[in-house]
């Protein structure tokens, strides 16, 4: 488990991270969402032990992380622009990381290289941006660390590759309890990967929740009521987050479980009623609007 407690970091007069407290549970995919400059990379670099927090504490499996080799043995950090040695190919990078990480799996690495069509003899400098990110991810995965920190790593990966990486994550999580932490400014990129999401804004955490919890507790309903009286009766006891009306068709976002919604609307007379699936984006819109933010301005625009 990674505990980030009341961590702050300033660069000169700019406060990049302001009293962030987040807990990252093991064996989950944690998404760190935020706009450019929200502090995602700074948080990740502090968690990876690259930077020292000005205030607060970061612990990886109850160990302080900064300049702590034991803590770092459990993590692999893929920066937004991963560094490869000048003139190196995949083999040279493998040799380096396998000399550093005790559990680096060479066979697996070369197997993945083949699967991802990455030439092990080709100079990395000739790789595309996406290929470099794939290579960095494979190096990270094959290092067999418990935690894998990815800073904007999925940005630029094509859907096929994303799916491939996602499959590897699933396999590694199942086999050895890998805990990927993925920072991104793009909510849509994390939607199908993350289990838990933390939203950073202006250096602080707006919210941190399990996606499943969020999805279970917010529902979107489309319906046509038989009368205004029925509508009042139906909506009166619900915690409505948002309501849109187009003619007689009402689209309502509300905080409740699906079962409760179904049971509730069964008692109401409707011409049409349907529970719609919610996208992560819609969940975030709803959640952040509750705390007074317009998410579209934060990360979707």
């Amino acid at each position, binding site marked *: 488990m990674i505990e980030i407690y009341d961590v702050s970091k300033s660069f000169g007069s700019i406060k990049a991270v302001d009293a962030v407290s987040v807990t990252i549970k093991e064996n989950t995919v944690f998404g760190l969402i935020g706009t450019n400059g929200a502090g995602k990379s700074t948080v990740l670099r502090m968690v990876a032990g*690259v930077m020292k927090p000005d205030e607060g504490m970061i612990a990886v499996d109850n160990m302080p992380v900064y300049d702590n*080799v034991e803590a*770092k043995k459990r993590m692999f950090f893929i920066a937004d622009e*991963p*560094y490869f040695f000048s003139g190196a190919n995949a083999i040279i990078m493998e040799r380096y*990381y*396998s*000399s*550093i990480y005790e559990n680096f799996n060479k066979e697996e690495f070369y197997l993945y290289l083949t699967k991802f069509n990455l030439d092990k003899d080709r100079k990395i400098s000739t790789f595309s941006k996406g290929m470099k990110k794939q290579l960095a991810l494979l190096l990270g995965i094959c290092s067999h660390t418990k935690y894998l920190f990815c800073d904007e790593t999925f940005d630029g990966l094509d859907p096929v590759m994303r799916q491939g990486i996602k499959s590897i994550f699933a396999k590694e999580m199942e086999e050895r309890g890998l805990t990927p932490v993925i920072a991104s400014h793009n909510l849509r990129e994390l939607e199908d990967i993350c289990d838990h999401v933390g939203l950073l804004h202006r250096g602080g955490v707006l919210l941190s929740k399990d996606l499943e919890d969020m999805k279970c507790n917010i529902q979107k309903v489309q319906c046509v009521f038989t009368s205004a009286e029925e509508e009042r009766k139906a909506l009166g006891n619900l915690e409505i987050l948002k309501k849109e009306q187009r003619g007689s068709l009402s689209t309502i976002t509300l905080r409740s479980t699906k079962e409760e919604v179904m049971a509730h609307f069964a008692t109401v007379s409707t011409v049409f009623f349907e529970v719609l699936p919610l996208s992560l984006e819609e969940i975030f819109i709803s959640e952040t609007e509750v705390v007074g933010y317009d998410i579209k301005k934060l990360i979707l625009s």
Partner: protein
Amino acid sequence: MTSKNSFLVNSKENHKRRTWVWIVSILAQLLIYPSVLTLYLGRIKIWNKEGAYPTEALFKKVMYDATVEAIGFQSKYVIHILILGVIIAVQGFSYLYDKKKVDMYKSVPVSEKRRFTIIYINGILIYLIPAFIATLLSLLIAGVQGAVNGTVLAECALAFLVNLLYFLIVYHTSMLAVMLTGNLVVTGFAVLTFLFSGYVAVMLYNSLKWLFFDTVGGLFTEETPHKLSIAMEYLAKVNRLARIKSVSSKEMMEAILPLYAKWFVVAALLLALSYWCYRKRPAEATGQAIAFPVIKPFVKVFISAIVGLSAFYVAEDVSYHNTAFAIFTMVVGCVLCCGVMEAIYDFDIRSVIRHLASTGTCVVIVIVIFCIFQFDVLGYDTYIPAIDDIESIAVDIGPYQQYWEWDSADESITYVSDTSYLKENMFLTDIEAVCELVRKGQGLGGVYENDERFISVLYRLKSGREVSKRFIVDWNDESNEELLNRIVGTKEYRDGFYRFMKDDIPYDTLRKQIRITYTNGPIECELPSASAKRLRDAWAKDMEQFDFTMAKHNRVCGVINWKIGNSYSETEMPIYESFTNTIALLKEYEAYYPMQLRAEDIDGIEITNYHVDEQEEAEIMSGFPEAEAVDVVDTQIKPVTQYFEEPQEIEEIIAAVFPQEIGYYWNSRDMLDRNFDILITFKTDTEYPYGRGFYSYKFFKGQAPGFVVERTAQ
């Protein structure tokens, strides 16, 4: 089997990233040392074939010297060691400049301490292994050619250690520069600042002292700007070590052991500071000009103050001492430098006007420093140590002397500077007399108009400190005579000032190397070298009557010149008419001839009047600037030459002349008339041996006969 992530594995990985530095180091050292040695030895062998070395022993000695010159103490290697030190340090830690590299290296499970140690040790190996192999290879090459013996080996070993320590200092300094900065260009500036700013600062301080103070300088002042710059100290120290003849001598040990100790301590301190900065350096410093913002104002003020004061010095010089202009230039230079520093800090030209408070502080500091110098706030010019604090004093009063030391180890003469000789040999104890003379000289300020003379004084304080100053003595001020007699008339002075007063000369050993001549000007007689000791003893006895009054009011009647060894220089013994013991001995060797000329020996006298006084007067009257006045006046006043051969005229002329090539020694400098050049031609059939047959003379001031003045007038 080496385990993963071990020190050795990490170290090997680090070496892989430093291949090009290895190549540079190998090329730089393996090519330079053996190549230079091979060239030296080859050249000497060719010369030997041509017969340059008559004996096998001499040939061997030259070969040994060549090996030492190639791989011993040699300042010529300073640049290549310096460049290697900088390259190895900067390349090793250059990952700190790059965010991508920092992200990778700092996130992997290798401790900061281990990473530093690996990069640091590998850096030393990159220098050390090629240096060691190159030295070994050179010694093998030299050994095969018979150019190595125990002494050569010992010197090469000592030099190897000196070079290693110097490398470490440069290496650690460059590491510190990397730790304090965030990009390569600023690191370059920082390295230059660390290595040379101390030297520049001391040079500037010395220059300003010369500019502002009257008592600065003197022979005993040791200009040692390298004290604050080990980069420059290497040059000074290694050259000194190279001059020491015996590698196992006490002198070598006294010179090299403190050097080793000092450089080791400096290197250790720099390493500790570098490591501390490395640990404290934040990852976010990557790409910044300065890694620790807290030091920015101090760096800015330090560099801008040096630039501002340097601008002042240059402006003073180019504006012919226009102080107002120089102050303006100083302030502008300081402000501009502050602006440039701010622009460098932020990599933004618009930042030149940032942090005006520190810019203002800097301007105030340079103005304060200027005022300290201008108004001599610290009392530099008026400083005289308290008499009770002074152990002894050395002064340099008197005519120039040639000094040398006898090296009993290899029975040779080493010429030394007057400064070091007087420093080692003169210990005056009439401190009150010197201090009183200095006090009177201070009253004259820096005026140097008549026959004032700059005197160097070295105060040796009881605390062990030495203070060197210079002051002015008015040579013709009779009130100084008593004080000067209390100084010059002492045995301490004579023993310290005159080389031949020192009783350490092995005359018998030196016999074959000495050539002694006596001259009164036109006549020069060689004395047998066997007479050396008798001459010296007679002269030393005569010198017991020597004091300032005697020397100032009497003219020398001849000079005994000693030429020792292969030097072109001669050490002089001035002879006065009252030196009866010496003159008697000279007469015994039939070498004494009076200085007073005999009219019957003279064929004729050619006198040229250059009218120097008139010319100067005309320049002043013309009001032209100096350079133009010379041109104008030159066209109006011409030298006039006349020839005199009448016996009566010759009688009158020779009564008023003095040999031009014999110095004025302790007499007044303006004893001779500078307007006239006199060339006396001697007859060929004279009793006296007038060597060349002619000789140049000068009139005593104001004693040129009227008919000469008249006939050589315009």
